[in-house]
């Protein structure tokens, strides 16, 4: 289990050199189970029974192993396909996916930003001739398939286009256009972005990066040259992309229901595992007398001299003045495990400070603790993927996340940021459960805005306003 991590499975998929993730298959089977149980819960037993038959087929769907030729955005954006202004009768999707992507989704501008002032400056600082030809930029600012895999209408300048996430379409486009079931598309090679763990891997392959791939990993050197910091939380980032899918009856019929809390929780586990992968990757080992600083919590160094956070860091296991590894995902996962898997929560509680303490020992000590942490994350993943998150779970998790923020460590920017996005996901789940009154939903939205406002900019972030906003939010959660 340990050697077959989420990262390596993704890499294998890209390079097509090995059997695609066994984990994904296992995840898919579990997803089948969740879907059936959840649907019972939500839609009533008769409909659910029918759907179970459908999703059973989905769950057993074989995933296509090799990436196809990338045909380019032009293969998807036809006005009768995903570039329609109006949905045609009988379509299972809104058909405006291309329009949403091209108008509002930053992925569309991923290549274009390379050529703007900031992109040019970063390239100059890195000694690159141009960001538009540098692999270390293109690896994540475009659909980075190798030239041999590019179809005639493929354009790098399309940025992060359809196939960067959904996979090269040559193997599945025909099946897809002929109105196949979703499971047939998957079998033909469509990437299963609807599965939280698979989606997390796909997003994180850029949003953290692939530590083993020099063209897809933002090092501290690139940060120091001017690259912005990269926050990420699966459920929140899916929503703000903005998502070009709508979870309606037809979506659920084809792909199963979506629970924001689950997407969040699974995202945290995959995120943590991938961060540990980065610590374990030999390419990211210390060079000279410093470790790869991008793996650390930005706020542990980049704060003004006059606002040391000694107390918070002590709680996290590190001494004052010590570098601190980014561990906000581990904290969130601990909040989840406290509800779902108390033994794992206990293990995380001691593993988080153990990882931080190892910084004072040696890199091999850090790696030893990272290995243990990764195992904890990977072991939690099946539980998170199969758990049916109830309304009382959502409320308990809200409480756990708030408690993290209200004591010590939570006042750190990295944890505050993750806690806020976590609460947004949980709030979204509570709202879509339909159990909240209009007044309750409105109060939560207002409190949510207060939370986001309390740390709008990392440079002006202070723990106190965040804690205040968190306390406000706490009041809005119905008992």
């Amino acid at each position: 289990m340990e050697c077959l991590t989420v990262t390596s499975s993704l890499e294998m998929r890209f390079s097509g050199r090995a059997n695609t993730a066994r984990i994904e298959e296992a995840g898919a089977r579990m997803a089948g189970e969740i879907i059936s149980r959840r649907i019972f819960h939500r839609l009533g037993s008769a409909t659910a029974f029918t759907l179970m038959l459908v999703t059973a087929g989905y769950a057993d769907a074989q995933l296509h192993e090799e990436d196809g030729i990338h045909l380019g955005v032009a293969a998807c954006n036809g006005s009768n396909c995903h570039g329609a202004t109006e949905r045609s009768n009988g379509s299972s999707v809104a058909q405006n996916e291309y329009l949403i992507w091209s108008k509002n989704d930053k992925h569309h501008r991923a290549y274009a930003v390379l050529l703007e002032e900031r992109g040019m400056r970063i390239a100059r600082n890195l000694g690159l001739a141009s960001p538009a030809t540098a692999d270390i930029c293109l690896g994540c600012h475009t659909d980075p398939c190798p030239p041999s895999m590019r179809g005639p209408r493929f354009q790098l300048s399309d940025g992060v286009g359809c196939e960067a996430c959904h996979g090269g379409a040559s193997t599945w486009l025909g099946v897809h256009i002929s109105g196949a079931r979703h499971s047939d598309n998957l079998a033909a090679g469509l990437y299963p972005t609807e599965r939280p763990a698979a989606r997390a891997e796909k997003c994180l392959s850029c949003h953290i990066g692939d530590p083993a791939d020099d063209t897809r990993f933002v090092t501290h050197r690139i940060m120091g040259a001017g690259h912005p910091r990269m926050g990420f939380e699966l459920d929140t980032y899916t929503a703000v992309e903005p998502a070009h899918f709508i979870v309606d009856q037809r979506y659920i019929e084809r792909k199963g229901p979506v629970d924001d809390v689950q997407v969040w929780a699974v995202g945290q586990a995959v995120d943590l595992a991938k961060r540990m992968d980065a610590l374990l990757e030999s390419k990211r080992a210390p060079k000279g007398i410093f470790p790869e600083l991008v793996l650390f919590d930005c706020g542990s160094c980049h704060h003004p001299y006059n606002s040391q956070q000694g107390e918070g860091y002590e709680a996290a296991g590190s001494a004052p003045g010590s570098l601190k590894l980014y561990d906000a995902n581990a904290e969130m996962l601990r909040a989840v495990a406290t509800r779902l898997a108390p033994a794992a929560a206990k293990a995380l509680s001691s593993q988080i400070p153990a990882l931080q303490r190892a910084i004072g020992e040696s890199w091999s000590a850090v790696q030893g603790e990272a290995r243990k942490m990764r195992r904890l994350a990977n072991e939690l993943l099946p539980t998170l993927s199969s758990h049916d998150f109830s309304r009382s779970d959502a409320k308990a998790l809200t409480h756990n996340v708030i408690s993290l923020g209200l004591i010590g460590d939570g006042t750190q920017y990295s944890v505050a940021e993750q806690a806020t996005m976590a609460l947004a996901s949980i709030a979204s789940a509570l709202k879509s459960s339909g159990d909240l009154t209009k007044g309750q939903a409105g109060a939560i939205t207002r409190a949510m805005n207060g939370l986001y406002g309390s740390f709008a900019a990392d440079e002006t972030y202070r723990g106190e306003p965040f804690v205040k906003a968190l306390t406000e939010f706490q009041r809005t959660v119905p008992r």
Partner: protein
Amino acid sequence: MATLFRVISSRASTQFPPRPKSLGTRSIAIAVVLVFATLAEAGAQQQNEERTHLGVTACSGNTCHGAVERLAGSSVAQNEYLVWSGKTDKGIDKHSEAYKVLLSDRAKQIAQNLGLKDAASSKICLKCHADYVDAARRGPQFKIEDGVGCETCHGAAEKWLGPHYSRVPHDVLVREYGLTALDNPMVRAQKCLSCHFGDPEDENRFVTHQIMGAGHPRMPFELDTYTAAEPAHFTVDESYIKRKGPVNRVQVWAIGQATSLIERMDALLKHPPKGVQPELVLFDCAACHHTIKQIRWRPRGSTGLGPGTVKLDDANAVMLRVISARVAPTVAKALTERMLALHRATTADWKTVVREATEVRRLVTELRDSLSTHDFTREDMKALAEGVLAVGLTGDDTDFPGAEQATMALGSIASAMSSPVMPGHLTAEQTKAMNDALGGLYKSISDAETYRPEAFVKALKDFQKTIPQ
């Protein structure tokens, strides 16, 4: 820093006696004597470290150093204790409050963060916030609450107080009785730096990054500026020069820089990385402590470091490069190369860091000897001011610690150039113009957090205009 500037500018008006003839030769002779004397002094110092500290009370008598008015025939102003304890219009010497701050809320916070019971009873605090000696070496009137008192810097008075009171000459007190030769810039630099940077040999007398992280303020230092801003409780008048030799503030600055860099290299060598992090206190604070959006990195030919790396605080080395370019050009070239190699070593491995730091240390120790014997002339001073200006104006180093050191350097050079004892010293108007420009420089570095290199460069240009052709 703003306060520091006020203090310095108020000192600029200090009256100097008519200049002695043939100052140049004389200062060389004195410097040579001092270099040799240092060896003998070292022995006396060693012994003195085992003697008893009598306490501030032993010095502050109103007929001694606590007098409101100078007695006829006294070679000093006699108000030294009053200056130190803040009872004159010069403003208080913070050394007298060094212990008291250990009782402040901030100190309590720092102690708590470090897991200490109490700052005021912890060795790692007291060793610099008081005249810390073993109980057996504290005389009956000694009080730890006096903070950094007379004997912390001047040495245990047990053996020299009697001869001092009976007017044994200064050089004899130093040589025979263990009075610390603070008039010797190198000795003074070592004494100040043993706290203002820390004693790398003494783990209880070194502010590590852990102590910084717990809340200790940052500690900039420049020997000449800090001597003036203390405020100094000595006046360089005829009687001072007769007893201790003349003072050339540019020389004080230069020797301070060399000593600082030597101590930095010692500290680097004494603190190998712990776990995966080196001793961060030796690095440029601003390399990390800036907001994420405000990218501080700029390419610097003198470090060769790429973006995202943590840079050693090399401000003293940059100043020494300027100084040696004038005083010892071959050393300047070697220093440039060795510093580049040291910066590069931080991205290679610890073994290489040790090798390069040792080289820098050796080179600067040699340089310091030539600085002690060099007669800094008006032409030297002008050239040094231009050299310091060029570092910022060419963009070679506009990092915060560099800007801070450049500002203090220009302050020292300006004071030296306006000193009436120097041939061709500045006129009152020229001095005023320079002081005004200096105010702009201090303003540009008044806050490390909001520091903007552009504002510093602009202030440098303004200062440049005030240097007479």
